[in-house]
């Protein structure tokens, strides 16, 4: 039997989609469908993990082993999947609240461990599912559900943050530019280690419908602009950009050891030191 060529369609599901018409997350979903098709990943070998939020409903809409987990814990759960089953391809998705608020501690340590997974943060600068509170990326002064006179806390810069902690793959994309996003997902999934893709994905319901225009006008395609993603200083400058919104691959370090690799080395090392044939023999080590 000839191998079936998988297309984007093969990754759709019939789970009811709950997103608002016009939500940026549709673009992300499309890009994922296309990317995994391009990579020809058999659906059964694909794990799609998320936290909680509008964006985190995504796994239900991808024909894969999907896991819409709990708020803020997508990364450690995905780390467990990836570390225990290196044969799988692991995609992680979620919102800016999930990733950078309640999930901030795990984010830091995922960057540090460099597990082999691609993390797509659908950054809409708002808590969508809980109906409109400010998030760690909401600009100061924007009205929110809980602060109608203007959000007061300054936003985090996830790109600078990740770069400072030596992320090994860093990109930003716009859900209105599905092609570029798809390409970045493909690259991220080919990267051996932790790939972060921060996606500007507008929430039309709680932040109005002007953001698409904003990103179209202020977007800066660094891929096309010849940015060298091995240049750390240039990468740093991009993360500090104030006027334009950079989209594309910002930084990649192909040489860092991934968690998967590190665990493999540990297993080899310990197998040399612990010369048992089976678990029964371990009992020996306890004899006085």
């Amino acid at each position, binding site marked *: 039997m000839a191998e079936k060529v998988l297309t984007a369609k093969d990754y759709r599901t019939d789970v009811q989609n709950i997103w608002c018409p016009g939500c940026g997350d549709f673009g992300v979903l499309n890009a994922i469908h296309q990317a995994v098709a391009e990579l020809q990943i058999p659906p059964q070998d694909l794990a799609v993990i998320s936290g909680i939020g509008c964006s985190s409903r995504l796994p239900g809409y991808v024909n894969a082993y999907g896991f*819409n987990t709990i708020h803020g814990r997508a990364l*450690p759960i995905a780390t*467990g999947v990836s570390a*225990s089953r290196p044969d799988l391809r692991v995609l992680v998705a979620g919102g800016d609240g999930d990733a950078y608020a309640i999930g901030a501690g795990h984010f*830091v340590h995922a960057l540090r461990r460099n597990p082999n997974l691609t993390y797509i943060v659908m950054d809409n600068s708002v808590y969508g599912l809980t109906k409109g509170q400010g998030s760690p990326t909401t600009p100061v002064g924007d009205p929110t559900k809980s602060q109608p006179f203007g959000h007061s806390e300054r936003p985090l810069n996830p790109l600078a943050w990740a770069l400072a902690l030596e992320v090994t793959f860093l990109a930003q994309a716009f859900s209105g530019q599905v092609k570029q996003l798809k390409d970045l997902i493909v690259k991220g999934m080919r990267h051996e280690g932790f790939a972060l893709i921060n996606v500007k994905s507008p929430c039309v319901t709680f932040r109005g419908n002007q953001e698409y225009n904003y990103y179209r006008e202020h977007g800066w395609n660094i891929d096309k602009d010849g940015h060298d993603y091995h240049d750390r200083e240039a990468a740093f400058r991009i993360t500090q950009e104030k006027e334009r919104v950079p989209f594309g691959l910002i930084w990649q370090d192909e040489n860092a050891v991934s968690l998967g690799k590190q665990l493999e080395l540990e*297993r080899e090392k310990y197998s040399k030191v612990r010369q048992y044939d089976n678990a029964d023999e*371990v009992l020996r080590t*306890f*004899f006085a």
Partner: protein
Amino acid sequence: MKINDLTLTLAGSGGDGVITTGDFITRAASSDGIYCLTQMSYGPQIRGGESSIRVRMSHKQAQSRGDFVDSLLVFSWKDYKRFTDEVELRPGALVLYEEADKESPADFLPADIELRLQAVPFKKIAQEDVGVPLTKNMVALGVLAEIHGFNQERLKQAIMDKYGKKRPEAAAKNIEAFDAGKAWAQEHGPKEERLQLEPNGGERLLVMNGDEALAYGALQAGVRYYAGYPITPATPILHWLQQELPRFGGTVIQAEDEISAITQCVGASWAGVKAMTASSGPGIALMMEAMGLAGMAEIPLTIVNVQRVGPSTGIPSKPEQADLLQALGMHGDVPHAIFAPADVEDCFQVAMEAVACSERYQMPVIILSDQFIGERFESLRGDRFLERVKQVERDLPELSPERKYQRYAFSESGVSPMAVPGLEGGQYITSGLEHDESGAPTSSSEYHQLMSDKRAAKLKGVAEDFDFARVYGNKDAEFGIICWGSLKGAVREAIMRAQDEGLKVAAYVPQLLYPVPQRSLSEFLKGKRKVMVLELSHGAQFYHYLKGYATDLPEEFLSHCRAGGHLFSIEEVLKLIRTHSVSELVA
């Protein structure tokens, strides 16, 4: 007449090496077939503070730490001070102490007990005869070996095992100190037969603490993913697995916190790899949300809580049994099980049962151990371990392209075969949301009811399959004791003594705490007119729990409890039995 049961305590400052000395005694005796139960105790200082070690040695497997100390060795009275309430001296006990210590022993010893005091120049011998002051603990070892008749060959072997290969001179000096101590004792030491421990001549025993036994049980049960965050007294589990699991292709990750630890395990288990995590009260508190997820999504998961004194940071180095309500208290009605080991060997078995239960019933299973079980060392027979190995694999579905796989298909047992990534055609969506059979989220109250029924059905199966309890004493006694975990030891020994006194009494120690192991409990309760629950929880959590969830309890259902830290002694339990026992053995 030589004796076959001896409890020994050594106390000094951190630098005095009492822990090493007690450890050598434990290992040497165990290798010689003598059963030891060894417990360490430290002051608040991280290093250099006071420390003490207590070794109970016995021809039969010791059930508890022993009520009374027969032999006490003190390097410094000031350091000894903080342990006074842990050391109940037996009348006539031998007390060896550092001759050079300026303090007066009388200031530190009970006035109302006759003791056999003996000053020993440990320091002087180490300094003058051996030339290495640090070896005074080996001098002490020699003294003790001679007085109590320990197997000296084995002790020397233990010294060689520790230093021989890496530091041969250190080994030689230690042996020299040992011999000097022995010489001193031959000349000056008490030579009473009643102080001499008879050799057992039994088979070589192994030495393990409860945390290690539990970790080894997990390895044998097939656990191949462990993520944990250090915390006293659960850390030994992390240490042991970190060095053993990789050899078996497993993964151990020291997580950034307990939430990461347990959710990593949720991920690994969801991916089809048996997973376990461990912590103590404060860390377990952080894991509760994820346990709910495992309950809702029906993901197998084993969580170990080595209980310490709470609330909050409490007393990290002492045991308590007050995390039962925590183990019950997830948000929503979460199907799960709670197991409790009652001694070190039981840790091994409970680990396997818990993993089996979690895999068979696809649920989170909590093991409630405690500091006294987890950190004490026991001598044990190796054969009893391998006999008990148990591995259960979860049900996988039979997938076919014709039928859409229904992850949460209804079934009588409540269990539905679980697909794991990699199985073609098994793709489904897992979530913590209520869902229909396929796994798709729903907010239908009807589905919530049906799925709650399904999940709860599993509890029936658990109560049937895992109803294991230890019952001691007289089946037909009218007075019964119920306890769990580390109280077993004292209760069991107290029952033996009560029987010697002609009292009729029985005890019930369940391994499964939740759901209630009603079958064995009802069996036990038959004919009981009065039952007392003993526990180390100020709020009597186990008592109230049984009252709320168990049936067939007698009218007179009593509670005897206190805050943790200090274990019940055999004598204390015996007194309770004397007071409450309603029937006597017919002689």
